[in-house]
């Protein structure tokens, strides 16, 4: 194994901000910031539509404000629209069937020691690793 592009400090700072955001949403709004659920509910659930939409709007504004004050944001994505379509579809499908994603299970769930979320997180990291091993980079 070879380690590359490792950025522990910015990763930790970003993580702390995410944890703080999740706490705000919990203590003020009484909800867990699981993004797949929030995003799906904007379209497919009647209650809290505006709250959910505003959360997503905040997510979009985050990088915009960052880029106004700091360096350029690096982001490299595959240019194969076929892979992107399949990937997007599987991410949407899987997070609804499994009831959560990296934020809902990986952060909110693990923080409260939920067995379901710990199992889910191990599962999606494993299939992610297997996918990259056979098809990726």
């Amino acid at each position, binding site marked *: 194994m070879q380690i590359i592009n490792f950025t522990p400090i910015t990763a930790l700072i970003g993580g702390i901000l995410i944890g703080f955001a999740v706490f705000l949403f*919990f203590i003020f709004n009484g909800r867990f910031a699981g993004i797949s659920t929030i*995003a799906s509910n904007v379209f497919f659930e009647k209650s809290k539509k505006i709250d959910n939409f505003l959360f997503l*709007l905040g997510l979009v504004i985050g*990088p915009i404000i960052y880029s106004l004050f700091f360096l350029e944001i690096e982001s490299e994505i595959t240019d194969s629209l076929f*892979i992107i379509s399949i990937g*997007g579809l599987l991410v949407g499908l899987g997070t609804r069937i499994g009831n959560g994603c990296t934020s809902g*299970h990986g952060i909110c769930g693990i923080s409260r*020691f939920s067995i379901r979320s710990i199992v889910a997180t191990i599962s*999606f990291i494993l299939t992610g690793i297997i996918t990259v091993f056979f098809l990726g980079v």
Partner: protein
Amino acid sequence: MTKIISLISGFIFGLGLTISGMVNPEKVLGFLNIFGAWDPSLIFVMVGAIGVFSPLFFVFKSRSFSISGEAINLSTNTKVDKNLLLGAGIFGIGWGLVGLCPGPAISSLSFLKTEVFVFVIFMFLGFYLGNQIVKKFN
């Protein structure tokens, strides 16, 4: 009040994703490339987020209402079932194909790239189909 908090929470979350580099699919795929050239940064994002939220959660978890008066309903479902494993497994495959999960996908809309818009449209199609499947089989 819940509206302004939703916006602020989303904003701070998006800032965190940006600073940590998680809006870069290449970096996320680097984390999943554990048998190749590995980038362990994502672990530190998780540790930072859980390290902040977990202790605060346990301090405040006995509250029945949030500060804005919303009921706090903690899920009581503890069963690891087929749906959980199947769904998480499918999600991981999509995550490994592109390197985007729902949060970074939404945040990345700000870059105005066709690829990200296509990903998000198909992700919402997946949400719709997933919701239908869960409704049908439960």
